[in-house]
């Protein structure tokens, strides 16, 4: 068992401005300590993939970033503002800059695809012109290649299509940071690769910074600029995909064994 964080490549971070800064973050549920001491930085324009076993607190970590869950202690700054000190209005404003893709997509099942995309737009932007709104919806759907699904209900869509619509709904607010909670879980390898490429394309097109929670090594390989391995409530290892994969440390390489 590793006692200290293995930092394989220190020079990856700190070259660009940090958009998310987490220091000594702790969170427990009913006395069960999930996040014990999390320290990490997400730099501008960077894609960070977080690996870790199921139930280790990866989703809890990104939910803390958008203020869905509040940490017990520690500092969590997004765009240099402490989340815990924000009032509801400030938090809502921040949330329009931070997109969140849920593991189960969380599409509003009583609304069509168009209404799903229109919903956050009408409530957050001051745009009232229907033509402009329609244009933005079509643009977001074009980005994910699903313009034809505009009038469909979520129940009529496949798993991969739901992921894409979830992404389009997030993109419509033009966020600076996107948090992906297991974006390729439950998808076939081909669709997983398509979603991973889409994440990369979006980063290139909109210059977003992303945190991607994933078990999918292919997704991690395609999308990551940097990877973190979460273990027992702390980040145990950090580095680029190839560096971690080729690590001589047995514990790290065990995450990359496919057989």
């Amino acid at each position, binding site marked *: 068992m590793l006692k200290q964080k293995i930092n394989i490549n220190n020079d990856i971070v700190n070259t660009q401005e940090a958009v998310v800064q987490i220091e000594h973050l702790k969170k427990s549920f009913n006395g069960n300590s999930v996040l014990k001491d999390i320290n990490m930085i997400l730099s501008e324009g960077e894609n960070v993939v977080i690996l870790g076993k199921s139930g280790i607190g990866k989703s809890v970590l990104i*939910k803390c970033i*958008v203020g*869905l869950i509040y940490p017990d202690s520690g500092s969590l700054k997004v765009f240099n503002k402490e989340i815990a000190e924000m009032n509801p209005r400030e938090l*809502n*404003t921040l*949330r*329009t800059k*931070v*997109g*969140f893709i*849920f*593991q*189960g997509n*969380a*599409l*509003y*099942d009583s609304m069509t695809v168009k209404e799903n995309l229109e*919903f*956050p737009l009408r*409530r*957050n932007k001051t745009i009232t012109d229907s033509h402009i709104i329609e244009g933005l919806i079509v643009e977001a759907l074009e980005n994910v290649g699903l313009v034809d699904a505009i009038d469909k209900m979520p129940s009529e869509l496949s798993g991969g299509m739901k992921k894409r619509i979830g992404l389009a*709904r*997030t993109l419509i*607010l033009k966020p600076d940071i996107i948090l992906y909670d297991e974006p390729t879980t439950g998808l076939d390898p081909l669709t997983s690769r398509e979603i991973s490429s889409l994440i990369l394309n979006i980063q290139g097109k909109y210059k977003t910074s992303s945190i991607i929670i994933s078990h999918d090594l292919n997704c991690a390989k395609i999308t990551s600029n940097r990877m973190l391995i979460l273990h027992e409530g702390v980040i145990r290892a950090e580095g680029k995909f190839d560096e971690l994969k080729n690590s001589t440390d047995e514990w790290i390489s065990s995450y990359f064994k496919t057989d």
Partner: protein
Amino acid sequence: MKLNIKKIFSKKAANENQDEFDFSRFKNIERFLNEIGGLSRFAGNFFCELFRPPYEHKEFLKQSYNIGLSTLPLIGITAFIMGLVLTLQSRPVMVEFGAESWLPGMVSVSIVREIGPVITALICAGKIGSGIGAELGSMRVTEQIDAMDVSGTNPMNYLVVTRVLATTFMIPILVFYSDAISFFGTYVAVNLHGFISFPLFINQAFDSLHYYDLFPATIKTYFFGFAIGIISCYKGYYSENGTEGVGKAANSAVVISSLAIFIIDLIAVQLSEIIHIFSM
């Protein structure tokens, strides 16, 4: 001496038993108080959001339409049977006292003052309350409410305010509808054992009704509607533990709403009695 030591020991043992008092038996009370506190805070949030834009008038109209239209057939059938049965059950006693002609008046007072509002509210608690509890509960467990939260949209405003307002304004309308259908049921029942023309029946029924019969009965229906809406939304909004939690949310929405209806009715009856005494 030995006896004294025994006494000391037994006293000690008694003290220890007192120190180790089992507080777990108060857990249900604690849970109940927590629930009351949570519901009060939720209702407080509702009133804060009520006056905060954006005003979701489209969603309010949609919910009102759904709530009103979906319950119309059920309430119609129940109200008709209620009027019919109430008249048939009351008739023998009225005949015995030679007061058969008072039957329309007596039944109409019973329906307008008590049975109509309470039965309609209970039906709505079952149908609407479970619907809201299950809908919001499933939205919670599938993270749709969280998705609204993280997109900077206020789910309280969109989901809760619209539904609570819809139940608050629709239930009084449904009660009026229920009362009217019950009157028709009464008219049919009266005519099963004799003949009375419809204008005469209406005349007799409304002759017995007074302003203080109608006014408190109408006011309390707004409270019934509010209670059904807020309790169902609260149970659904904070549902947890997956699909099992959705079922529990729907179930407890119905149970607590029904209980709240009887408590509100009790308070309303007492208050209207006091007001009636002072106004005489």
